[in-house]
Every structure is written in structure tokens, then in C-alpha cells.
């Protein structure tokens, strides 16, 4: 009997080992996370400084962001020059103030540096302003403050500039908990450790078995336990096993066969490479540009149009102009050649679908059918676009009757029939000729 206990004990030890290992791994993860948070906190504490009068800087900031940012930024050229450390470039501070108030006056007086600037910026006239001295001082104080401030944040990789927009994703993702690649490494390590423990335990069992076989005076009951062997050959040849295997095989084959039949004519998951590597994740996700900004006809037309190149140029006349992908847009504009995007959602010609009807009248969100576009680097077809898929939605969706006089009578009649909310199917949403004609 004592031998049986020994075997059971070994199994228990195995379980305890696994548990200890798991909890230690978890503990180290939590510790790493804590350390990360603490680092962030200390970094925040360092960044505040008190060299500037906060009230003056804030007053300057509100003027600067209201009026100056139209043409100026601190670190880069916009329409006018970058204003970082602007005071150091002017030998006369009063003249700089004069220039802000009325630039043309200073230029016409023949001041060398301002004439040079005027020529350099294609004779673009800076409009005149009527600030008092206090306001001018606050603007300059803010520019000075921002000039020094940007230096600090720029080195820590703020990633706010447009040229970095695409590349700056890798750094951002790792803040939430443990990164997934570490998790896989930890899991693989765990599996290896478990296998090692198993091997060691098997070795111990065989050594113990041999040792016990050599001992004299063992009871026959215990002898049986020690000599237990698993006979694979006879098990495989048994009738039950063979019929089980055949059953599983037939079941799996039938299931895959039926599943595969359902994929014929369905393009769900289709994600073709487009002529320009446009990222919805960047535009709709990171920058939160509304779908309708580019797909302008979605509320008014049967189809949601693919934007023409001039819509791209609203931003990309200035943003990322060096990127080879953006150069393709320029080429299309210059040669008056349309960009030939690959169509992803191909509803068969036998079915009619209207975007305006669903988006404007039905009030559906784009994501309902197109999935989480804001997360798609390359767009794929999210929904199956089968008839069953259409019908399911028409049976479940309530009609958006609010503020729409067209439905008033229908709602009235429907209420007389029964208390249930009016679904799309109740107003003929499942009539064949609604979609097939």
C-alpha cells in the first residue's frame, strides 16, 4: 500500500511544482508592470519647471494658438518661418515687436533681416495686428517657453510630427500590461519545464519500479501495480478504436466539406493589395477622420464612392510629401489618370443594395457591416454579404422611425396589430423584389 501512496505523492508534487512556477511567473510580471508605472510617474515629476511666469505664458499661449498658429509653429516652417528662439535672431527686440504689429512698415524701412525674410518666403505678407505691449510680451514669453519645452519632449520621442506618424506605432502599443511576444516566450518556457518535469518523473518511476522488482517479499497486489504496462498494439487493433477513428474521420471530412461549400461565391476575408498602401488604421483610427470625409456620397447615393485624388490632396499637399506612396497620388493628379483601387466588396449583380438607404434613413454605422475599419491596416471584407446575413439583420433591426413623418401612419397601423416594435421585415424588408428585380 505504501507504494501506491508514493505514486500518488509523486503526482501531487508535480501539480504543486506547476502551481509554484505559474505563480512566480505571474508575480514577476506584476513587478515589471509596477516598475514601469513608477518610472512614468518620476518622468512626469521632472518635466515641470518654474522658470516662467505661468500666467504670462498662458496668456501668450492663448493668443499664439488663436492667431499665430495659422501661419507659424515653434519647431517647423508652416506658412511663415519656425519661431523657435526667434528673439535670438533679432538684434533689436523692439523692432521684432514692431514687425509683429506691422511687418510691412519694418520691411519698407529697409531693415536688412526682415527684407531677407520677406524675399525668402515669396513675398507673403504677414497681416498686421493691434496688440498692446503686455500682449506682445506674453506672446514672446510663450514662444521662449515653448522653444525650450519642445527640446525636452522631442528627445523623448513625442512622435507628434506627421512624418513620423506611420512609423510611430511600435512604441505606443507596449504600455498596456505585458507585450504579447513575452507572453508566448513565457508560455513556451513553461511547456518546456513541464515536459522536463514529466521526463524526470517517468525516470523516477522506472527506477523505482526496477528497484522494487529486485526486492523480495512484495505482496501480489502491489506487484500488479508495479508491472502495469500499457499495451499499444492490442489497443490500436481493437474494434472500438478502429470504428472510433473511422467515425471521427468521416465527421471531420463531412464538416469541412459542408463548410467549404458555404465559402463558394463568398468573398469574406478578401484583402487585396491596393495600388497605394493606404492605411485606414492610421487615417480613420489614429487621426479619427470620419468615413464621410472621403467617402462623400455614402449618405446620398447607392454607392459609397472611393475618393478622388483631390480629396487626398486636401492634406497631402503638405503632409508626408516625400513618401513614395504619396508620390503615386501626385503622379495620378499630374497625368490625370485615376488611381485604380481594387474593389473588395462585390455584391452580386443579382442583388440591389443602396448605401444612402441604410446610412441616412436606417441610421446604420459603417462599422455594422464593414467591421472595425479603424483597426485595419489593409481593408478586408468583414461581413459575408450573403442573403442569410441580410435577412437576419432585417428580421432583428427595428426601423428608425424617429422624426420621420413617412413612418407615422405605418407605426400607427403596426401598433394596432400588436405591441411589438416595428422591425424592417414588418414594412416589407423581406419582400423578394426589394432587392431582386
Amino acid at each position, binding site marked *: 500500500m505504501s507504494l501506491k501512496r508514493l505514486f500518488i505523492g509523486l503526482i501531487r508534487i508535480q501539480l504543486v511544482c506547476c502551481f509554484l512556477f505559474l505563480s512566480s511567473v505571474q508575480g514577476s510580471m506584476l513587478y515589471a508592470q509596477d516598475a514601469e508605472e513608477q518610472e512614468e510617474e518620476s518622468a512626469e515629476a521632472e518635466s515641470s519647471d518654474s522658470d516662467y511666469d505661468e500666467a504670462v505664458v498662458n496668456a501668450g499661449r492663448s493668443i499664439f494658438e488663436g492667431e499665430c498658429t*495659422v*501661419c507659424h509653429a515653434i519647431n517647423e516652417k508652416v506658412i511663415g518661418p519656425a519661431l523657435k528662439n526667434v528673439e535670438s535672431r533679432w538684434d533689436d527686440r523692439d523692432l521684432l515687436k514692431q514687425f509683429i504689429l506691422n511687418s510691412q512698415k519694418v520691411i519698407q524701412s529697409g531693415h536688412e533681416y526682415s527684407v531677407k525674410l520677406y524675399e525668402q518666403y515669396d513675398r507673403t505678407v504677414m497681416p498686421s495686428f493691434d496688440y498692446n505691449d503686455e500682449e506682445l510680451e506674453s506672446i514672446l514669453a510663450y514662444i521662449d517657453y515653448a522653444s525650450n519645452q519642445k527640446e525636452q519632449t522631442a528627445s523623448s520621442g513625442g512622435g507628434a510630427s506627421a512624418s513620423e506618424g506611420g512609423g510611430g506605432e511600435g512604441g505606443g502599443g507596449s504600455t498596456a500590461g505585458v507585450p504579447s511576444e513575452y507572453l508566448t516566450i513565457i508560455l513556451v518556457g513553461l511547456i518546456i519545464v513541464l515536459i522536463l518535469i514529466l521526463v524526470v518523473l517517468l525516470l523516477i518511476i522506472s527506477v523505482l519500479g526496477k528497484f522494487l522488482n529486485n526486492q523480495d517479499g512484495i505482496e501480489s497486489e502491489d506487484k500488479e501495480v508495479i508491472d502495469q504496462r500499457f499495451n499499444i498494439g492490442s489497443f490500436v487493433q481493437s474494434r472500438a478504436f478502429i470504428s472510433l477513428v473511422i467515425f471521427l474521420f468521416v465527421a471531420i*471530412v463531412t464538416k469541412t466539406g459542408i463548410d467549404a461549400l458555404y465559402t463558394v461565391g463568398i468573398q469574406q476575408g478578401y484583402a487585396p493589395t491596393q495600388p497605394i498602401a493606404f492605411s485606414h488604421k492610421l487615417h480613420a483610427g489614429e487621426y479619427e477622420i470620419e468615413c464621410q470625409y472621403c467617402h462623400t456620397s455614402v449618405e446620398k447615393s447607392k454607392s459609397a464612392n472611393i475618393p478622388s485624388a483631390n480629396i487626398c490632396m486636401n492634406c497631402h499637399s503638405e503632409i508626408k510629401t516625400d513618401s513614395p506612396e504619396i508620390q503615386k497620388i501626385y503622379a495620378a493628379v499630374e497625368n490625370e489618370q485615376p488611381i485604380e483601387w481594387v474593389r473588395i466588396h462585390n455584391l452580386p*449583380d443579382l442583388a440591389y443594395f443602396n448605401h444612402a438607404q441604410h446610412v441616412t434613413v436606417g441610421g446604420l454605422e459603417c462599422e455594422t457591416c464593414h467591421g472595425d475599419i479603424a483597426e485595419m491596416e489593409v481593408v478586408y471584407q468583414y461581413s459575408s454579404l450573403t442573403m442569410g446575413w441580410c435577412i437576419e439583420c432585417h428580421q432583428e433591426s427595428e426601423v428608425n422611425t424617429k422624426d420621420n413623418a413617412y413612418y407615422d401612419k405605418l407605426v400607427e397601423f403596426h401598433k394596432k396589430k400588436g405591441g411589438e416594435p416595428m422591425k424592417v421585415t414588418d414594412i416589407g424588408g423581406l419582400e423578394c423584389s426589394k432587392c431582386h428585380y
Partner: protein
Amino acid sequence: MLKIKYIFLVGLFSAALIGCDAKGEDPGTEYAPQMYHSVAYEPLTQITDQSAGSWLSSREDGKGEFFNSNVNNPGGINMREPVANTVRRDAKGMLPYRVHKDSIDYAAEFIKNPLESTDEYLTEGKRLYQNFCSSCHGEKGDGQGKVGVVYKGVPKYNTGRISKVSEGHIFHTIFHGKGRMGAHGSQISQEDIWKIVFHVQELQKQ
């Protein structure tokens, strides 16, 4: 052994079918392709390859079944350009906006909103503003939209000169663009631009 042969055949059949689904570059197998491809010209489905679908073509002109570009148009495009020297009126009878891009001062003084300010137009204007403007100009018109911060040069509506510009100026700016802002006349209908003007005027006051 007959049974095993059948099972094997069924296995082969389903293995062949597995290749039918769409994945990545592959749009998958089409069932009855003639029912999928439109004979009439359709938006966004232009196929310029004259031999596309020639393996099942029943066309009399000898071209492929799926070829659906308009041979009479330049570049085979399906849409006709408007006839020269004609103008389009929209449902409300508005003529196209024809004030020249450079004449913003004229627009600021003389162009007036043809719509009457109603609650309906104000809420619609706000919604349209969120679709077309807020990514740069921000929800509150402070220029702090996610794109605006990166794009630079987006003013606040409620301070300085911008807070005093007239409705004609706002309309002209949206239609033709100004400074770094691009022209939005092709994206937004004139009526919708005027609705947006209502909302921008609200933001100017805030």
C-alpha cells in the same frame, strides 16, 4: 474496401473545396459568375481588360463576358463629363458657385446664406461639421482636432479676426480653401456648406 474508397473520394472532394474561400489576394471561387458581373455600367466595377471572362462569353462583339468599360469615353470611364458650357442646378435650384478663388473679399461682402437659420439646419450643420471639419478644426472650433495638431496652421474660430469674418467669407473659404486649407467644394454640396456655415457661426460666438 469499397467503403474506404468512398470515404477517400469524399475526402478528396472536400480537400478540393477548401481552396474555394477568399483569403488575402484571392477573391475565392465565384458561383455562376454571369450573375455576379453587371452587364450595365456600374460605379466602382470598371473592368478594362477586354478579354476578362472570355472563357464563358456569350457576347456578340467577341469581347470577354466581364468587360464593362465604355469604349466611347476617354480612358474607358463609365461616367460622361457634363456637356461643355452647361451648368447644373441642384434640387433647390441653386446654381454652381462661380465666384473666383481670389475674390474672397467680394464673397465676404456680397455672398449671403440662402437658407434660413432653423434648429433643423443647425443640428444638421453640426453633424456635417463633425464629418468634414472637426478632424482639423476640432469639435469646438479651436483647431485642436487630431489632424489639425499635426497639420499645423489651424486657427481658433472665436478669437481675433477669425471671430469676425462674415458668412460669405466662411462659405468661400470652405468652397475654395484658403492658406493651407484645401478646397472642399467638390466634397460637400453647396447647401450642406451653408448648413456648416451656421454651425461655424455658432462656434465663432463661443
